[in-house]
C-alpha cells in the first residue's frame, strides 16, 4: 500500500448503490471512509472532521456538489476534491474545475479509475507540501545569519549584501576560488524580491565557447547541426528571477557584445532566431581573477565591465580572515558527522593550530574537503588529530599565534595585545600542567618565581586555582 492508512475520504452521492460501491472499494484499499447522501449532510460532516479527500457527485438534491466542494475548500484549503459528473461535457468539466476540484470523473466509471485518481491526488499534494517545505528550508539556508563568518571583512560584506539584496541592481562578485561566491549570489537572490522565482546558475568557464551562446540564449530548430528542436536558454529560464554567471571573465568578445545588450536592453535573440525575446532578469556575475586588469589588457570590454560592476562585492581570501577558521571547522565537522550518522567530533588543539596557520589557497572549499577527510579518518575516536588532516596542512608548523594575527583598519593597542598573548600562553601552560605552576613554568622556559610574578601582574592568580585549571584541562576546541 503506497498511502497512509489514516487518510480519510468523504463520499457524497444521493444514489446509495453507487456511493456504497465506491466506499466499499476505497475502504478495501485502506482508506477511512464516511458517506453522505446530500450536500447538507456532507457540509455538516465536513465541519466536524477534516477529511483529506472529498468525492462528490455534481448533481445532488439541495446544495450541489460544486458548492459543497467550494465550502469545504474554504475550511480546508489542502483538501483534494474529485467531482463525479454525468456524461462528460466541456461545461460540466469546466464547472468542476472552477470549483477548485483536483479533477473530475464522468459516469459510468471503473472503480480502478477512482482509486488511481485518489492516489495521484495524494501524491501531488505530498509533492506540493514537500516543495513548500524545501522552499522554506532553502530560504533558511541562505539567510545571511546562516552564512559563516564573524570576522570584520565578512560582517561588512553581509551588511552590504543585505542592503543590495532588495534592489534589482547588477552585482559583480570577485574573490579567489572557493571563497563562496555562489553562496553569496544565492543569499542575494533568496533575500531579494525575486526569492519566489528561480535562480539559474551557469559556469561560463566550464562550457566550451561554441556551446556557451546557445546555453545562455537558447537556439531555434535547425540553427546548427544537431539543433533538432528549439531550446530555451538560461536567460529565459531565469525570467522573473536571477541568473548567476560564474567565471564571466572567460567569455569571448562576441558573447560579451550579446551580454552587453541583455544588460542594457534586457533583450536578445536565440541562436539562429529572428524573434527578439524580452526577459526580466537580475544578473549576478562572478570572477576569480581581477576583471579590471583584464579590461586594462583589452581582454574584457570596458563598457561591459562598467555595466556589470554596478555593485562590486569582493570576498576576502580565507588567509585574510583566519579568525573564521574555527567556526568554519566546527560547521563542517558537524555537517560531515551528521552525514555519516556519527557523534559530533571535536578537533584537537594542535590540529586546530595547523588549520589556523595553513594558507588555504583553495579557501573554504579546501577547508571543507580537509574536514571531510578528517571526519572520515577519525574512526571511533572523539577527537580529530593532526594525523587526520591532509599532508599539506600537517606540514604547516603550529607556529603559535603568529598567523592568527589580524590587524583591523582602525589599528590595535600593541601593549594590550602583547599582554593578551602573554596571558594566553600562561593559561595554556597551566592547563597543560593541570595547574602545577612549576611544570607550567618549565613549559614556558621561565623560572617559577617569574611565572608567579606574571600571574600577579596579569591578575591571573584567581583564575588558575587548581580547581579551575582542572576543569579547563580538556585541551580541545568545541
Amino acid at each position, binding site marked *: 500500500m503506497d498511502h497512509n492508512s489514516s487518510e480519510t475520504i468523504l463520499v457524497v452521492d444521493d*444514489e446509495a448503490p*453507487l456511493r456504497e*460501491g*465506491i466506499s466499499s472499494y476505497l475502504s478495501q484499499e485502506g482508506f477511512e471512509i464516511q458517506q453522505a447522501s446530500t450536500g447538507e449532510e456532507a457540509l455538516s460532516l465536513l465541519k466536524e472532521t477534516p477529511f483529506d479527500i472529498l468525492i462528490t457527485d455534481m448533481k445532488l438534491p439541495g446544495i450541489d456538489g460544486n458548492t459543497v466542494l467550494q465550502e469545504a475548500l474554504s475550511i480546508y484549503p489542502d483538501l483534494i476534491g474529485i467531482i463525479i459528473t454525468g*456524461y462528460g461535457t466541456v461545461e460540466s468539466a469546466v464547472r468542476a474545475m472552477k470549483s477548485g476540484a483536483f479533477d473530475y470523473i464522468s*459516469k*459510468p466509471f471503473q*472503480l480502478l479509475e477512482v482509486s488511481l485518481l485518489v492516489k495521484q491526488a495524494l501524491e501531488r499534494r505530498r509533492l506540493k507540501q514537500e516543495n513548500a517545505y524545501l522552499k522554506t528550508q532553502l530560504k533558511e539556508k541562505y539567510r545571511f545569519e546562516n552564512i559563516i563568518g564573524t570576522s570584520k571583512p565578512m560582517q561588512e560584506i553581509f551588511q552590504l549584501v543585505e542592503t543590495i539584496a532588495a534592489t534589482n541592481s547588477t552585482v559583480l562578485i570577485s574573490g579567489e576560488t572557493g571563497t563562496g561566491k555562489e553562496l553569496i549570489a544565492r543569499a542575494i537572490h533568496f533575500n531579494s524580491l525575486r526569492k519566489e522565482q528561480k535562480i539559474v546558475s551557469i559556469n561560463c568557464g566550464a562550457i566550451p565557447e561554441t556551446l556557451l551562446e546557445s546555453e545562455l540564449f537558447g537556439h531555434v530548430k535547425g540553427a546548427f547541426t544537431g539543433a533538432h528542436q528549439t531550446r530555451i536558454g538560461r536567460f529565459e529560464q531565469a525570467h522573473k528571477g536571477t541568473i548567476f554567471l560564474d567565471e564571466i571573465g572567460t567569455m569571448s568578445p562576441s558573447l560579451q557584445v550579446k551580454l552587453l545588450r541583455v544588460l542594457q536592453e534586457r533583450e536578445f535573440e536565440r541562436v539562429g532566431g529572428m524573434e527578439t525575446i524580452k526577459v526580466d532578469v537580475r544578473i549576478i556575475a562572478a570572477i576569480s581573477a581581477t576583471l579590471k586588469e583584464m579590461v586594462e589588457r583589452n581582454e574584457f570590454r570596458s563598457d561591459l565591465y562598467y555595466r556589470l560592476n554596478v555593485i562590486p562585492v569582493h570576498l576576502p581570501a580565507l588567509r585574510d580572515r583566519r579568525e573564521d577558521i574555527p567556526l568554519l571547522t566546527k560547521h563542517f565537522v558537524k555537517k560531515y558527522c551528521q552525514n555519516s550518522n556519527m557523534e559530533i567530533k571535536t578537533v584537537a588543539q594542535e590540529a586546530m593550530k595547523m588549520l589556523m596557520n595553513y594558507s588555504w589557497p583553495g579557501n573554504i572549499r579546501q577547508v571543507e574537503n580537509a574536514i571531510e577527510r578528517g571526519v572520515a579518518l577519525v574512526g571511533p575516536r572523539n577527537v580529530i588529530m593532526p594525523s587526520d588532516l591532509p599532508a599539506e596542512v600537517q606540514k604547516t608548523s603550529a607556529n603559535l599565534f603568529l598567523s592568527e594575527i589580524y590587524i583591523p583598519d582602525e589599528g590595535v593597542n600593541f601593549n594590550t595585545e602583547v599582554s593578551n598573548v602573554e596571558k594566553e600562553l600562561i593559561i595554556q601552560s597551566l592547563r597543560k600542567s593541570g595547574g602545577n605552576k612549576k611544570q607550567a613554568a618549565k613549559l614556558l622556559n621561565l623560572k617559577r618565581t617569574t611565572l608567579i610574578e606574571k600571574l600577579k601582574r596579569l591578575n591571573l592568580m584567581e583564575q588558575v586555582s587548581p580547581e579551575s585549571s582542572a576543569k579547563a584541562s580538556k585541551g580541545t576546541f568545541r
Partner: protein
Amino acid sequence: MEFDFQEARNSLHKLNNKIAQVLVYAELLQLNLTSEKDKERVQIIIAGALESRDITAKLMNDMPKVVRDETSLQP
C-alpha cells in the same frame, strides 16, 4: 411523430447510472473472488458494461449539440 431528443437524453442519463452500478459492483465482486473461472465470468460483465458505456457515449455525441448541452446543465 417528432423525435424527443430531451427524453432520449434523460433516458441515456438513467442508463448511464445503471451501467455505473453494474461496473462498480462487478469490480467489487471481482476483487473478492478467488476462483479464476469466476473472475473471468465477472470480467465478461465488466467488458459488456464498458461496451455499453461506449454506445451511450456515441449516442450522446450524435445528438444535436444544443439539446445535449442544455440537459447536461440540468440539476
